[in-house]
Structures are given as structure tokens and as C-alpha cells.
């Protein structure tokens, strides 16, 4: 067992860090202030293949392993959590399910545009009446000859306003239970596909979140992802992978808050000494460092398990739950260390706090994460 990052992984971290600091550094506060996704950033992200992180070269991807993926998202998030989310969702629940469950024709048709960033991908499952209760979705697809007719709506769709390719889950009328769902690959130009307004959010304001409305969309059968009855399985497996990205995003936010806290506390003089010399502050730093290291190691193990091809639902839930919780705690303590300065928008610390909170909510709330973990434990997967 070797706990050191390989040379390759260190190069990934170094490269993405340089990129993020150079390109996203100046854009992050603007994206947050204006609550707008940056197409300029998107173009630059395409140059480093960030839109096709784990897709094979054959379809235009960078073919990275999952640890590299986690490092990439973390490093982007360290500078801009909103961009990290956009990239994470695009890759993990947008591109990946097409690669994993798609037919060869679908892969060849959809993936090259997705990996090149020409088309941004999204994943839409949540509905007004189906949040944690994922099975309660009401969007309905009815078979009509060689097409399906889809009606319904989705809410809180990350990348909703910028995506061209959207994976969605819908009820399929004739089947009941877990088998009664179908996953489709939709194109925003399909007739009857409507995009709602951008949501006004607490954090991750540089990412686009919208509702989607489906009015009698006629979906050709070649746009079904996987088997007709596999919709639920595809959705849940996509989320397992998505949680790696969210955990990485949370760790990136935590890392940024922590670094700012260390630097600030070393330079801030009160009572004639740097506040880092007071245990009240230095112990906070110690706690931050410990939490980040734990979360990161847990995430790397999850990524390792995924690449090994063994079940990792429990571990990915643990990673997402723990990383998001410590990110919120660390961002909160970072403001405490910065005092009034941390509360002002002149410093990015308050943004970390706003950005961190949502990681406890999406890709399954932390309560759902604990439900998944405990279910696995009680099934005997100790």
C-alpha cells in the first residue's frame, strides 16, 4: 500500500492547479457576482480536455483514471466551485452514463461533441415531487409506434441553461416498481423541450441551474439509454459516480478555505502577535488539516475501488457525506478566523461558505447518504 500520489497524479494536480489559477482565478469572483456561467472559461477548459475527463481517446476524451478525475475536480473547485460543479456534472452524470450504458452508435453520435465541450451535458432526475424520494418522479413517457411521447418537468437541473445534451429519467407506463423507468438522451432542440429561468442561488452562482419542461416531446427509440427498463438503475449508478465529483468539489472548497485561513492567521497581528499563535486559532487550523486529509484519503479510496471495478456505493456515499460536511464546517471556521473581513465580499472566504453548503444537498442529501451507508452496513457489507 502506497499513500503517495504517483508521478502521474502529481502532474495532473500541478497542471490543473496552474490552469485553474491562471484562467479561472480572475473569472471566479465575476461569475459569482454576476451569477453567470462563463463561456470564456468553457473554451479554455476545452483546451485541457476538461469536458471529457474519463472518456477514452477514441471519443475525444482524456481517458483519465478516477483518482485523476477527483484531483482535477478538486483543483478546479479550489479556485471556482461553480465551474467545478459544471465540469463534474457534465462528466460524471452526463458523459459517463452514455459511455457506460450507450450503444456504440450512441457513443459515436453523442460523445465527440460532449468531450470537445461543443455540447455541454446535464442530467435531470429531480422533480417538484421527487427529491430524496427518487422513485416518485412523474415525468411520463408513453410508447407511440416507433417513438416515445414525453411529458413532465424537472427542477434544479445543474447545467440546465447551458446544456445541449440532457439525460433524463421518466416513468414508463407499462412497468411497475424499479423496473418502470426509462432513461433518454434528449437534445435541447427537440420540439417541446423548454428551459426555465436560471435559479437565483445562495452559492455556486456561476453554474446554471434551471427547470426543464417537456411538452409532448417525440423521442426516437434510438435515444433510449440502455435497456428500456434500466432507467432507475442508470440514474442511481450515474449518481454513484457523480458523488465522487461532489466530494472532490467539497474538498476543493475546503482546501481553499483552509489555505486562506493559514495565510491570514499568520499575517493578522492582534495583541502583538499573529493570531495563528493563539491556540484558539491554531487548533482550528489543526482540525481543518485533519478533516481535509481524512476526506481526501476516503475519496481516493473510493476512486480506487471504482477503477478496480468493485462495488463502491457505500464508499462514494461516505465520501460525499463526509467531504461535504467538513467543507461546510471548514468554510464556516474560515470566516470565524477572518472575523469581519471574512464576512465581507472583498475576500473569497464568504463565497466558500455559500458554495460549500450545497454539497450537503445535491447528488443526494447527506441524510440519503447515511441511509445508503447504513443500508449497506445492515446488509452485511460492514
Amino acid at each position, binding site marked *: 500500500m502506497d499513500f503517495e500520489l504517483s*508521478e*502521474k497524479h*502529481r*502532474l*495532473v494536480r*500541478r*497542471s*490543473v492547479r*496552474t*490552469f485553474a489559477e*491562471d*484562467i479561472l482565478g480572475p473569472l471566479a469572483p465575476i461569475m459569482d457576482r454576476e451569477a453567470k456561467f462563463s463561456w470564456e472559461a468553457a473554451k*479554455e477548459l476545452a*483546451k*485541457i*480536455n*476538461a469536458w*471529457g*475527463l474519463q472518456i477514452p*481517446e477514441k471519443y475525444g*476524451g*482524456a*481517458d*483519465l483514471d478516477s483518482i*485523476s478525475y477527483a484531483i*482535477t475536480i478538486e483543483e478546479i473547485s479550489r479556485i471556482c466551485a461553480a465551474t467545478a460543479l459544471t465540469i463534474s456534472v457534465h462528466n460524471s452524470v452526463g458523459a459517463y452514463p452514455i459511455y457506460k450504458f450507450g450503444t456504440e452508435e450512441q457513443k459515436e453520435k453523442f460523445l465527440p461533441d460532449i468531450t470537445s465541450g461543443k455540447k455541454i451535458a446535464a442530467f435531470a432526475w429531480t422533480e417538484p415531487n421527487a427529491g430524496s424520494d427518487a422513485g416518485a418522479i412523474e415525468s411520463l413517457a408513453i410508447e407511440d409506434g416507433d417513438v416515445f411521447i414525453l411529458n413532465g418537468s424537472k427542477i434544479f437541473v445543474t447545467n440546465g441553461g447551458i446544456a445541449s445534451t440532457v439525460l433524463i429519467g421518466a416513468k414508463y407506463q407499462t412497468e411497475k416498481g424499479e423496473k418502470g423507468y426509462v432513461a433518454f438522451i434528449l437534445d435541447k432542440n427537440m420540439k417541446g423541450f423548454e428551459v426555465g429561468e436560471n435559479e437565483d442561488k445562495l452559492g455556486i452562482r456561476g453554474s446554471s441551474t434551471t427547470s426543464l419542461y417537456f411538452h409532448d416531446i417525440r423521442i426516437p427509440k434510438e435515444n433510449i439509454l440502455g435497456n428500456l427498463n434500466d432507467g432507475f438503475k442508470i440514474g442511481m449508478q450515474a449518481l454513484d459516480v457523480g458523488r465522487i465529483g461532489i466530494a472532490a468539489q467539497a474538498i476543493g472548497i475546503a482546501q481553499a478555505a483552509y489555505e486562506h485561513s493559514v495565510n491570514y492567521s499568520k499575517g493578522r497581528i492582534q495583541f502583538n502577535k499573529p493570531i495563528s499563535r493563539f491556540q484558539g486559532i491554531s487548533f482550528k487550523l489543526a482540525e481543518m488539516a485533519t478533516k481535509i486529509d481524512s476526506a481526501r484519503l476516503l475519496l481516493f479510496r473510493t476512486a480506487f475501488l471504482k477503477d478496480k471495478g468493485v462495488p463502491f456505493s457505500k464508499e462514494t456515499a461516505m465520501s460525499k457525506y463526509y467531504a461535504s460536511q467538513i467543507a461546510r464546517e471548514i468554510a464556516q471556521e474560515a470566516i470565524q478566523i477572518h472575523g469581519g473581513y471574512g464576512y465581507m465580499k472583498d475576500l473569497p472566504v464568504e463565497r466558500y461558505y455559500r458554495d460549500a453548503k450545497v454539497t450537503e444537498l445535491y447528488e443526494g442529501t447527506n441524510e440519503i447518504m447515511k441511509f445508503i451507508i447504513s443500508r449497506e452496513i445492515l446488509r452485511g457489507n460492514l
Partner: protein
Amino acid sequence: MLKIFVLIKQVPKTDNLQINLKTGALIRNKIDNIINPDDIFALEFALTIREKYGGVITAMTMGPSQAESSLREALAMGIDHVIHISDPIFSYSDTLQTTLVLKETFEKIKSYDVIITGSVTLDSGTGQVPYQLSEALQIPLITDIFIFEFEKDKFKCQRNFGHESQDIEVNLPVIIRIGKHFNKPRHIPLSGIKKAFEKKIEIMDFNLLNCPDEIDGCNKSPTQVIKTDKLVHKRKNEFIKGSIKEKIQRIFDIMKEHGIEKRWMQKK
């Protein structure tokens, strides 16, 4: 097809330098090493040439085994081949010894059109190798290029420095020393990283290069680093007390002490 070579060096990251206080040597570990920042401009220049004129780029470095990571980084950036010049006998080489080894390397390679270098290294700051190599290989060296083009076996460029410019034309092969910020180096594409680790690194050592006896970095380097020390910049703090008049007077006194009073008065 142009045969382009780029000389790069691995240097320790300077934001967290640690020095062994007993021996005065830098403590190097494999984690905090980077490609010498100036050399990145040289790599980018090579990539630009290849994009415009075609060619094959080989990056080479002389250094211990951990220098391999910098060669992988060059490959990830888009460089075609890399050569690692490495042998225990090359350690502690000064610039002249380094040049002699490079000379042997290029004599072994035989065919080269363009050799590109950065300006200076972050860890020693001498900037001598391109000049010495030009002498050793008896080929021209061009610095401070501004605009350039290749035409058959000629390299044409405009050099800019200070208030004048020169138009220069030389026959290949040529050494080009690239200045800081000559270009904007590209970011490493993630797709390049996987490929970089699949490529083979060619290693050239003392025997393979058939080096003459005069090559012996430790014993025959004319320059020896006796000691390395950390430079500490201490900030001085003074609280100026008294009436406004006294305070202003004190500020003027300080300016006088540091000789900045005159310059300031001139500006006014």
C-alpha cells in the same frame, strides 16, 4: 523536417526552499521539483515552430533520476521525444561540464537543426549554457528574437533589444535562447498526461555517450559552489511619533538616509 531540440532543467520550487544547514546543499525531494520556469517558454516556442513548419521536437535534460518527471511534463505538453542525460559522474557539474556533456550528446545525435534554450535557471541563475554550447558545437547562437521565420535551411529573425532592432539570417543549425515571456505557454492538456506516461524515455549515460576523461562533474568542474544559504529579507518597522511637523521631518530624514529624497524631489 526540422529536428528541434529543447534543453530543459528541473529545478526545485522556490516557494518552500529548504537548505541543509550543515552541508549548505539544497534538500531536494521529488515532490517539489518543477521545470525551470524560463524553459517553459522554450518548450512553447518549439511547439509553435512545429505547428507552423512541421518537425520533430526532442526535449532533453541532464540531471538525477527524479528529473524524469520534468521530461514527462514536457511530453504531456506535446513534445514528441525526450532524452534523459544521467550518470552519477555528471553530478555536481557546473555550466562548463554540463556543456561538455551536451556537446557529446549532440555529437552522438549528429543531426539537429534547432536547439532552443530558456534564459536562466531558477536555482543557479547563470544563463551560461547556451553561450558555451554555441562555442562547443561551433554553431551560431541567437538571443532576444522578436519575429522569426524558417526558410529552407535558413533561420531569419528580427532581434529587439533596448532601442534598436537587427535583422539576422543564419544557416541551420542554430541555437536560439528564448527570453522570458516571449510567448504565452499553453496549459498541459489532460489528454497529454496519460500518453506522456506511456512513452519511453531515452537515457544517455557516460558510457553510451562515450565521454572523454575530461568529463567528471564532481572533480573537474572549474566552478564549485562552496555554500548555499537562504536569503532572509527582514522588514523594519518604525512607528513615527510626535507632532505632524516632527513626523514629516522624520519621514524626510528616513528618505535622506536611503537616498530616495533626491529622486522624489526630481519627480515633483
